[in-house]
């Protein structure tokens, strides 16, 4: 029972991070129909900016006083920085290719991903050494439920992720801007004819997705302080799993991405806890192939008939 509850909690914590990253993938796919391979690198950028800020604020010292205010400040700063990065990437790399074949855009995304990874590795940025994220929040044990310890960091992580998702959901389904986003995603040409500024909406989508990825990066660094160097394979794999989450939920569907993220978190951690911890990547990708074969449009996605 203890093991089950522990796994359940870890599943929610990890799954909500996957969901945050998956949202960026799914929003971009919904509008531009391409896999933004550089998205996972924006997430890594978020984690490393959080690290740099935390060290800059003096949290690397042993006697540093943990503070909630600083944590919120770092989170917002990282989100702003990555939002700016997302805007720049879209403006410089993707916009010139708006009418190009999708494969070209995909290759460009791989190029941007390589660029971010390798520039991040330069010694003027984050270097090639793994670093340890200093603890900005006090990791207190709040209490224990049925023998499972509830950590403050886990609670704040999952809480922040869920809150951000609620805000996003509200934004997309209950505001003018959100309606514009949905319209562009439905049909770009018609949306433009209705007077929607398509370029602005796409830019906004990238800013939104990138800042959510940055938030995920910050929360990830809080939960797993050992940060790998920016080009490490673990990061790419993490991004891929988040993308798998988006596909399973139904790509292009915002609520599907949230559902898929949590689902992937559960599958991965329950598989690791009850079957074999070494095969966790296999569970995720097997589920992906299974879902694609049985229901190619994902759990919440709608199948779109192709017109001739």
């Amino acid at each position: 029972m203890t093991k089950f509850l522990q796994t359940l909690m870890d599943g929610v914590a990890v799954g909500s991070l996957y969901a945050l990253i998956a949202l960026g993938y799914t929003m971009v796919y919904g509008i531009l129909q391409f896999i933004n391979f550089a998205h996972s690198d924006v997430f890594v950028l978020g984690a490393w900016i959080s690290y740099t800020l935390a060290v800059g604020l003096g949290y690397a010292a042993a006697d540093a006083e943990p503070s909630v205010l600083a944590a919120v400040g770092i989170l917002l700063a990282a989100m702003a920085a990555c939002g700016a990065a997302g805007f720049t990437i879209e403006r410089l790399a993707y916009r010139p290719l708006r009418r190009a074949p999708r494969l070209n855009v995909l290759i460009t995304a791989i190029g941007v991903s390589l660029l971010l990874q390798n520039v991040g590795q330069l010694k003027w940025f984050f270097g090639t050494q793994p670093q340890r994220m200093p603890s900005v929040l006090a990791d207190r044990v709040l209490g224990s439920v049925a023998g499972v310890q509830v950590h403050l960091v886990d609670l704040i992580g999952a809480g922040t992720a869920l809150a951000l998702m609620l805000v996003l959901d509200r934004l997309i389904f209950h505001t003018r801007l959100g309606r514009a986003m949905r319209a562009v995603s439905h049909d770009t040409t018609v949306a433009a004819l209705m007077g929607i500024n398509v370029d602005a909406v796409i830019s906004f989508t990238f800013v939104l997705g990138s800042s959510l990825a940055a938030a995920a990066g910050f929360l990830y660094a809080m939960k797993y302080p050992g940060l790998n160097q920016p080009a490490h394979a673990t990061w790419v794999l993490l991004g891929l799993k988040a993308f798998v989450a988006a596909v399973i939920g139904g790509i292009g569907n915002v609520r599907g991405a949230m559902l898929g993220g949590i689902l992937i978190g559960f599958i991965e951690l329950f598989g690791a806890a009850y079957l074999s911890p070494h095969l966790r990547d296999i569970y995720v990708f097997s589920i992906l192939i299974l879902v694609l074969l049985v229901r190619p449009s994902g759990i919440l996605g709608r199948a779109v008939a192709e017109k001739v």
Partner: protein
Amino acid sequence: MIKGLAPLAAGLALAVAMQLSAGPIIGPFAVKLLMDIGINVILAVSLNIVNGFTGQFSIGHAGFMAVGGYVAGCFTYYGSYLIWGAPRVQAGWLSGGDLLFVGGCLAGAAVAGAAGFVVGLPSLRLRGDYLAIVTLGFGEILRVMLQRTGDVVTSAEEVRAASWPTLATSLGGSLGFSGLPYYTDLFWVYVFVAVTLLVALRLKFSSLGRAFLSIRENEIAAEAVGVNTTRLKVRAFVLAAAFAGIAGGLFAHEVGTSLNPRELGFQKSFDIVIMVVLGGMGSVSGAVLAAIVLTLLPEALRGFSEFRMPIYALALILMMILRPQGILGLREVWELPWLRRRRS
């Protein structure tokens, strides 16, 4: 245009000439580079059959390469133990060792082709990006499974005592399959390059190749005029995977390479995709050109190694924006307009 066995004979003659003259004249480093180029040419040209001709999007090509490499490695390594008692290179060109190695490569190609069939089957239902993700997932599952294999058996007695399934799963795990004999030389690399090029070129200008291209241009229209799209897509997959398997076998037995699961992960797959797109989707000579350029480029940039990868990435992005159809587009080198004009 490319008919008969003459091109194959020419390729063979070239391979023999390279083998006999190259080593002493240009030195081991250049030989190694030439072998790398040859292997990359096989990979790029074979992926071009799926991505360029048929217009499907596979980003798991390194997975097929890994299948071929591991099967071939298993074949020569444990085969050498059973026959000669040690995985040493049996001296002499075209000797028993060489034959074992080529047999291994062909076995690797067969198993990789079978894997291609299994992965190609989902393409019955999936299009575009989804297929890409499935191929990617296949590569990742394969990587994890290879990482879970046992240690390499390192004595003749144990190899003789072990059962076939044990040997087939003793592939070195995440450390990689070490101790493989170095059989790959210029001759075998370029023999297989010649075969690959011949098959790809003959295919492109055949009716089967035209059918592949019709799927790429418009799948629904192709189906409407009677092209069996699903069967052809799977066929393209199997063909490409088999050649990737050969490239994997060559890679496994090359000097200075390490056959480990991480080496042949999605990064390698991306590298091959980049070669195809840079050369021009559907252009065989373009894929060759891009494979040569992209193998040499990192070496040329070695002087400022720190900026090597950023420059490479930047060049890729600029290339996509400024010349989205790749160097050659669908054309071959000899079909370029300025070459044509001169000829007539």
